[in-house]
């Protein structure tokens, strides 16, 4: 009996392409997508592009920049030239760097302030007025600023070994003099403390360490802090993914209606196929708008997502996203022959689009290649739009690329759905 049941199961699986795809193709596809995304992360071959503003123009700042540029992990830009050539354009200003961060072009920039070279010391107590190197950051990327900060500290030592040796001898003379046993003990304790990471030397503070460059990370987009980036990312990412699922499922009502005969009855009425599709599309769009609104209102109520202050941008993105998602749902429904086929195909497509398009893992943490590949997905454009609104505080006019793509996709989806729906018309 078990053998017979196994045989029946095997025959069913062999003849059910959707089940085969869900069982074998989908896991392999997901494995490949995430292996590509995270494999690139592990390679450490991806360079971080860093605009560097040299307000100091000293020998010290010049040597720092040269040493930063020599770092394999960084791609340093000091001029305004768009091709990042160091010989074209004008030197970057703080405003230029902030603009690049706000536009989302870069996640991190370095500002070497005036007077940095003159006040620089490797060791010893530092003045409170010592200029501080600023790391301008888009903190929605939590990794890049920390990498730049670490490398900056590293090159501040390795870039000038001669200066470091001289200052070390001065420090020795200042603290040690002719070493007595007591002094030797004292110096040894101090060095031990430093080696163990304890730093209770006088006049040191977290923003002005005894060693290295005094640095601070400046949140360019949200100087007052807040977690809107993460919340808006997850609200948009999750919202768009489930919007696609609900639109695909809602579009499947066409298949139910075909099976039950109500579609034939609808087509016998005055509406015609265009009317039926238009009605379905508008319904799915309104449903999608409601779904996204609920998601963001929940985010505002529970997670302090600043919805009220970004309402116009939210409305624009929600209407455009829901319109395109509704069209996507209709394409799938008109393309598929059954509910079962629709469920399988939509699951595979939507999960793949969500993985590549940034609904599951932020695109800005992916490699450049994966980020470009992500742009073929619906999710990427919708998420970029929402992040522009909620994170980059972009004006409505800045949403035009996302608006154009989503509107274009809507038109393509509706055209394709109309074409595929011909099979239900009088033939």
């Amino acid at each position, binding site marked *: 009996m078990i053998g017979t049941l196994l045989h029946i199961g095997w025959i069913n699986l062999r003849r059910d392409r959707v089940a085969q795809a869900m069982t074998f193709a989908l896991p392999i596809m997901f494995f490949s997508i995430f292996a590509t995304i995270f494999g690139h992360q592990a390679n450490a071959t991806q360079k971080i592009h860093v605009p560097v503003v040299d307000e100091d123009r000293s020998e010290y700042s010049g040597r720092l920049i040269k040493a930063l540029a020599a770092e394999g992990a960084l791609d340093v830009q000091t001029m305004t030239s768009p091709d990042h050539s160091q010989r074209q354009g004008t030197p970057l200003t703080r405003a230029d760097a902030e603009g690049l961060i706000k536009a989302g072009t870069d996640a991190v920039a370095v500002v070497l302030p005036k007077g940095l070279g003159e006040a620089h010391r490797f060791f010893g107590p530092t003045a409170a007025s010592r200029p501080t190197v600023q790391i301008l950051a888009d903190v929605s990327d939590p990794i890049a600023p920390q990498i730049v900060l670490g490398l900056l500290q590293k090159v501040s030592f390795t870039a000038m070994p001669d200066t470091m040796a001289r200052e070390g001898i001065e420090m020795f003379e200042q603290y040690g003099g002719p070493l007595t046993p007591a002094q030797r003990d004292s110096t040894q304790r101090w060095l031990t403390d430093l080696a163990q990471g304890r730093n209770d030397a006088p006049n040191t503070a977290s923003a002005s360490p005894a060693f290295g460059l005094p640095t601070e990370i400046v949140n360019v987009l949200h100087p007052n802090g807040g977690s809107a980036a993460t919340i808006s990312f997850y609200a948009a990412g999750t919202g768009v993914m489930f919007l696609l699922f609900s639109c695909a499922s809602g579009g499947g009502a066409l298949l139910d209606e075909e099976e039950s005969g109500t579609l*034939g009855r609808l087509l016998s009425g*005055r509406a015609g196929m265009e009317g039926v599709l238009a009605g379905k599309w508008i319904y799915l769009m309104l449903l999608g708008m409601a779904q996204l609104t609920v998601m963001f209102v929940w985010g505002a109520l529970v997670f302090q997502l600043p919805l009220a202050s970004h309402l116009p941008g939210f409305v624009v993105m929600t209407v455009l996203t829901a319109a395109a998602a509704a069209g996507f749902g209709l394409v799938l429904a008109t393309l598929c022959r059954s509910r079962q086929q629709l469920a399988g195909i939509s699951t595979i497509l939507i999960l793949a689009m969500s993985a590549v398009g940034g609904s599951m893992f932020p695109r800005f943490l992916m490699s450049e290649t994966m980020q470009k590949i992500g742009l073929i997905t619906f999710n990427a454009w919708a998420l970029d739009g929402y992040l522009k609104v909620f994170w980059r505080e972009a004006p409505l006019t800045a949403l035009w690329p996302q608006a154009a793509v989503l509107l274009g996709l809507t038109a393509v989806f509706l055209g394709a759905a109309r074409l595929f729906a011909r099979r239900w018309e*009088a033939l």
Partner: protein
Amino acid sequence: MATPAVPPLVVRNAEKRFGAVRALAGASFELRRGELLGLLGPNGAGKTTMIKGIAGRTRLDGGDVVLLGRSLGPTDPRPDIGVVPQELAVYKRLTARENLTAFGRLAGVPASAIRSRVDWALQWSDLEERANEPTERFSGGMKRRLNIACSLLHAPSVVLLDEPTVGVDPQSRARIYEMLAALQRTGVSIVLTTHHLEEAEQRCERIVIIDRGTIVASGTVAELVRASVGASKRVTVALAAPWPDGPAVPAGAELDESRRTISASVTDVGSELTTLLGRLAAAGVRIADVKLAGATLHDVFIALTGRELRE
């Protein structure tokens, strides 16, 4: 409404191919005002294609559909036709009233009239008491009645029903035919397809039999019988004991395998039946029962379309 001189529906030389299959091969028939016309045929004969062709849900390759005297193009609207599909084409989560309202609006019933039309439909289909229940709770017969009512809200002159009584019990079928009779009395003309030949024989004024895409016969049941199997009647004689081995079975009569039943066809009942019974008495057999039956629509159907399976 059609005038008596103009038939509400005329189909001439309807042609339709699906690839190599010729679903309609020049089929023609006419529907009269207030008539209930049965469109019969084996599976795959072309009945549903014919219904869809008339309703505009299938584009005919050739031929003509004339509705109320006006020849229809393939995309012309057909507001005077109500189509009842074979499937239960209602929304199961909507109530009967909500279904009727929705389909009434889609059929173009004015907003001012929709409520009264829905009330009429609920009364006509005997669903008033369950009007506000989701249809998923309905029995098969109730769903069938609602399915028909949903197609009548715009008060069509011609109603096409594709197997309206499939899958329902005899009581529900009887109720559906009562509903159709009430419609007929208002002058509505009805075409229905069915595999229930006895019902068609009892309920339909005229029968059209279609096979392999062509109309093989049409007329009243009596006309069809005369034209196909003739006016002879079948005599069945049950014997009290098995037919004895000695005497021969009378000429023209057939003895079944149990040797307890003899049957024969008679045209002149008065003389031929008497002769047969006399010969049986002469053979020494005792008669237990005698049945006399005329040819039925079933006989006509089999005679015209054969016994071979079509699918």
